[in-house]
């Protein structure tokens, strides 16, 4: 093959590899997923808002999700604790990413593990919440607190989000293993940790809106 043709091929190759976003394709693909997922959650929340506005009455979440401590009803306490846990997990995830930049394997794995534990605690709280509501008769088609749609949206919104947290824990477990066994060292890049972090922070971001729209309104 002639040298001129070869160099032309190289040029073309370089040109197609240059990202208009100046980010790796892995990161760009995670952002594509996040935008699509955000629109899915957004549609669910808009649908919930539409339903709630068109019914006019709704259950009182402050009362439904209250915890009783010493005979006193503290409104929304469980949800406040869950929010606290998820925000904490976002912080530990950020620290995992910061340590991955410095290629500190031990601390990266430590903070990834902490993040997973907080994620599992969050899901544990959700299991408690679901069990509580189900034993009191809440179903997707009926509930003792308000219009039947309250149950339907409760299960859909929190279930969809909970599945995201659970998938996130699995994702982080795989990433932590790849950090620990040196796969990322061999690859010469710790960017996978940052990309997994994007997903985890996104799940926290969705909770901000579910917390606000479903529990506080």
């Amino acid at each position, binding site marked *: 093959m002639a040298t001129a043709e070869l160099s032309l091929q190289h040029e073309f190759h370089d040109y197609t590899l240059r990202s208009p976003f100046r*980010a790796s394709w892995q990161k760009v693909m995670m952002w594509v997923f996040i935008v699509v997922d955000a629109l899915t959650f*957004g549609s669910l929340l808009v649908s919930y808002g539409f339903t709630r506005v068109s019914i006019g009455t709704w259950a009182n979440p402050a009362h439904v999700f209250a915890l009783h401590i010493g005979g006193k009803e503290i409104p929304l306490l469980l949800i406040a604790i869950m929010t606290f846990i998820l925000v904490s997990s976002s*912080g530990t995830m950020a620290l995992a990413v910061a340590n991955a930049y410095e290629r500190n394997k031990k601390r990266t794995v430590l903070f990834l593990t902490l993040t997973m534990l907080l994620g599992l605690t969050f899901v544990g709280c959700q299991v408690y919440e679901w069990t509580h509501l189900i034993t009191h008769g809440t179903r997707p088609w009926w509930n003792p607190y308000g219009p039947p749609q309250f149950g339907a949206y409760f299960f859909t919104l929190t279930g969809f989000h909970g599945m995201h947290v659970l998938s996130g824990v699995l994702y982080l477990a795989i990433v932590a293993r790849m950090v620990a066994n040196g796969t990322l060292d061999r690859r010469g890049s710790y960017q996978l940790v940052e990309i997994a972090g994007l997903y985890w922070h996104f799940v926290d971001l969705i909770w901000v809106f579910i917390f606000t729209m479903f529990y506080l309104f």
Partner: protein
Amino acid sequence: MAEGTHVPIRKYLVVWLWLFILSALAYFIDVVHVPAPWKAILLVVVALMKAGMIMAVFMHLGYERLSLIYAVVAPLLFLVVMTIAFLPEGTAILGSHSIVAP
């Protein structure tokens, strides 16, 4: 190629603290029974502030190229359009649900 986007650790900690403060504030707004229109406005403002901080710092979007920021934020504006389009429509069919119990 530089690996990833480096954000100073101090910045993470500051945002982390703010997320705790704003979450507590949102809870407080709900508990003290702020009158109707103000409650909604305050809650939405607090939620958007939290979302902005998570995206800009935790998700490093503020450190990315402008083209990536536009590519991510522009489609999300569609959600604003949907909210404006559908919520008033909801009030238009108010009370037309056949099952409203108990």
